[in-house]
């Protein structure tokens, strides 16, 4: 498990990086944190004749508080978000999500933009940025471009980025103080990729609800968003409504998900919504032998 021969370069600007990408063609790969790319290269599942290291590009390390929104550079690490080293537009959602990505060793190096560009459906940031109504910005030979995060992913590991495009930053609109969020993901063990996740922003008519870790892009649940609009407390009838609405939304999405996966996604959604009402999962406390 050692990578094949490659050329390594470290451009100083986005423009230089794009030039390297164009010259390298299909066999050029960007590397930032390398937490997914390095193992893939070691396994020789991915080969990169030209490895373009973008970590030192200042423009990709921005963290601009622009009032109604925050612009976060692609090379900001999960750890920097987790520790609150960037302005937080999300009422605490982003640090919460960041602190639950894989293990600390991965968070130390793995980057926000790298995770989005790879577009593993289980990546936490795909669903989080979709729920936050973020805009993803990139630059390529054709100049600058952008789209809403929820429109960014076309299929697993496939995004709107062209081979010469470089994701530069993400604009996160500031959540109103009144907005409540909830997030829940199903991992088989601590630090593993999620098998299902749900992300909920409950903010009256502006509520946004997404399921993630599916077979592609995060799935938006419009009927659940409508049902949440007037929900003021969590109750058994509310749970029933949400479960039925969630299933209807999943069916309407046209996605091909197994019965087991749908069951788990509905659970994640229910728990994420409960979280917006301040309800935590039951604690087991100290049951073990003393």
């Amino acid at each position, binding site marked *: *498990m050692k990578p094949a*021969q490659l050329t390594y370069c470290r451009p100083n600007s986005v423009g230089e990086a794009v030039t390297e990408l164009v010259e390298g063609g299909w066999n050029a790969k960007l590397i930032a944190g390398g937490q997914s790319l390095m193992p893939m290269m070691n396994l020789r599942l991915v080969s990169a004749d030209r490895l373009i290291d973008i970590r030192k590009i200042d423009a990709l390390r921005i963290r601009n508080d622009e009032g109604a929104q925050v612009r976060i550079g692609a090379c900001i690490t999960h750890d920097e978000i987790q520790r609150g080293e960037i302005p937080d537009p999300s009422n605490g959602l982003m640090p919460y999500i960041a602190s639950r990505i894989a293990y600390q060793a991965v968070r130390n190096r793995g980057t926000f933009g790298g995770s989005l560009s790879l577009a593993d459906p289980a990546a936490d940031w795909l669903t989080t940025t979709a729920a936050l109504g973020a805009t993803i910005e990139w630059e390529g030979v054709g100049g600058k471009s952008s789209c809403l995060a929820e429109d960014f992913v076309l299929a697993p590991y496939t995004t709107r980025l062209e081979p010469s495009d470089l994701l530069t930053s993400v604009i996160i609109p500031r959540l109103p103080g009144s907005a409540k969020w909830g997030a829940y993901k199903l991992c088989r063990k601590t630090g593993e990729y999620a098998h299902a996740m749900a992300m909920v922003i409950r903010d009256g008519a502006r509520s946004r609800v997404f399921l993630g870790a599916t077979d592609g892009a995060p799935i938006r649940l419009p009927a659940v968003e409508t049902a949440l609009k007037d929900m003021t407390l969590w109750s058994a009838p509310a749970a029933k409504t949400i479960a039925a609405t969630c299933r209807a939304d999943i069916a309407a999405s046209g996605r091909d998900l197994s019965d087991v996966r749908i069951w*788990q996604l509905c659970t994640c959604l229910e728990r994420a919504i409960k979280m917006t009402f301040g309800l935590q999962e*039951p604690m087991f406390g100290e049951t073990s032998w003393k």
Partner: protein
Amino acid sequence: MTSSSDNKGIGGSILRLEDQRLLSGRSTFIADIEYPGMWEVAFLRSPVGHADILDIRKPAGCENRVYILSDLGDVLPIRADSQAPGFRRSDYPALANDRVRFVGEPIAICLGRSRAEAEDLAEQIEVDYRELPAVSDLSQSRDPAFPPIHPGWTQNVFLESKIDVGDVESAKKAATLRIEREYKMNRQAIVSLEGRGVVTWRDERTGELVVYSSTQFPHVIRTALAHCLGMKERELRVVAPEVGGSFGVKNNLNPEEIALAALTRQTGKALRWVEDRREHLIASPHAREHKYHVVAHADGEGRILALEADIDVDAGAYSVWPWTAPMEAGMAIGFLPGPYAITNYHAVARTCASNKSPIGPYRGVGRPGACFAIERTIEEIAAALNLDPVDVRARNFVKPEQFPWRSAGGKTYDNGRYEDSARKVRDLIRPERLSELRKKFEDTDYEIGLGYGTYLEQTAHGTAEWVQRGLPVVFGYEQAAIQMTPDGMLIIDVPIQNHGQGLETTLAQVANTELGIDPAVVTVRHGDTNQAPYGMGTFASRSMVMSGGAVGRGCEMLADKLRKIGAHLLQVSEDKVVLRNGGVEIDGDPSGARATLAEIAAAAYLRPERLPDNVEPGLSVVAAYRTSKDTGAWSYGTHAALVAVDKGTGLVKILDYVIAHDCGTIVNPMIVDGQMMGGLAQGIGTALYEEMPYSDSGQPLASTFMDYLVPGACEVPRAHIEHLSNPSPITRYGIKGMGEGGAIPPPAVICNAVNDALRGLGAAINETPITPERVIGALLAAQSRKAVS
């Protein structure tokens, strides 16, 4: 035995002597060893499950860096024949030449100055394959639509064996309860922290072919290599350096070991191969993959009157040496009756072949599957009769007065108080908490369950057991060479191999018990055929009994001489002295006159004029040991788990875990606790996480840790461990082995607890690992059954 804090001998919880070098990362593993001019090896491995090789083309200009079987000179294949009648042979070549039989099978050796360079070469080799249908599921092994995996075979089954004991038909008629179940324990990788690895070179001074291998049994590997390479044993030196965990995966003769040794013999090149994690997951020997169809016939109080079983094991593509392919199924059929006095038993066990990596030994060998099947069944009996599962076990256990017990599986159990362990565990887990917890989580997604599992662990099997199993090698004894140095300290050379068990410490504790010597001045060396006398290595929970016995025996011989010399130095007769506190003293003498070990050793080596006339100079002995009966010393125990099953996700959370076990006399309680916890971690892996699935075409589907999950620190609860200690009647000191027991019952215990939790919902699960998908699948199946009825 005392276990007071000042006891450094048998029974003392002294800190492990080997830990400092291990914890500070200073020791020497295969990947730390270099030799001038050494080449790094990468193997070209088969990308297909089953194919004829039509042609292999080396990259032009690289002919002296790429080697196939015909370049290795005379090399015999690995032939692990079982003596059992009807066994179908499989010859396992060092490198595949005309046929590949599993994904990952080595085809060519590639050399580079770095591993990456060697891997580049492997990518450039062109191989023409004619693909054949791959046997990828147990249901296909007897299907004539699939071609024979080995020449001359009529079906893809290594061996079918039967047991028919007692009168099953009459017993069935007396039974009032019939429980019929199917159980499956899926295939696992073994996942030692350090993978396998080999370094070879030619020692021009001694003429030896030197083979460093991360192995559990260097002497046995030397014997096997000598055979396969047509060399003399004296021409080979095999060394196991520090071995970073093994659990059985390094307890086989590997094609890689033969291939490197043969190539060094042929070319004189020094070589190093370090297995990477992907190779380890797909091409190291795998474990488990058992399927059981069990029918138990019981009376109204849960006594098992008769047991019927049909067992299939997928042993993969080749018979591994020295264990042979049928070992797993043989142990499954032999151990299925477990701790129970079952006298009517009819069973069939098939060792099936497939196009998968060969099955080899892994902590517990055969028993986790057998324990899973019988312990699930006994709890199903208890549930069907609405009886306490511990009470039902107690009615079925072999009773203390019935030992030695000849089991329906053909094994002889030495002794035990099985009921004590089950009752102890029930007291500790406090089943009365169940109703309270269930009430607390009534309106949540969490279902609470409690499960038990009792296991037997045959350890330190002697000659008769290995002969009965029909293996090519019989492992009935162990040797130790013990020398006192001229300064009165001790060097013990043993052919067993410490790979994490703390044997340097525990063998030094045995020396302390015999000689009163401080373990801190005892050096225990292992892993080198040029140092230790011949012996069998570390596996099958044998080393503490066998090597401990040999060290004890040798120290006893040495003590005799030490007393003779000491008495002479003190100018009293030998019957007046005792050996204690690191010296020879006159018994009952208040003056404190003594001869220290250093003074005695100095006399023995440096000042022979001080020796009595009837004592030869020197203080070194070689001792051999075997148990007084050779049927094995049987450890046992009961585990219990309290779990919460999350109906929303399918995840299982272990709330509490309790162990009460008996491994006879305990040498170091702290090390025993560590072994139990390590075994439990792997048992939890089997129960909840680890699975190596294959596609229809024979592709392994979990070739990295992204897909192959092992439990981490967060997934392993701290268990409460209670030691019961009933010494074995057949071993020196009454020690029983215990290295595997921790890993045997957890799949049964956790699955029992999960079923207890889900029973009220009409859902059942009888397959490991108990994944979220399987749990939700079981709940969905229960729902649709309800909807139909």
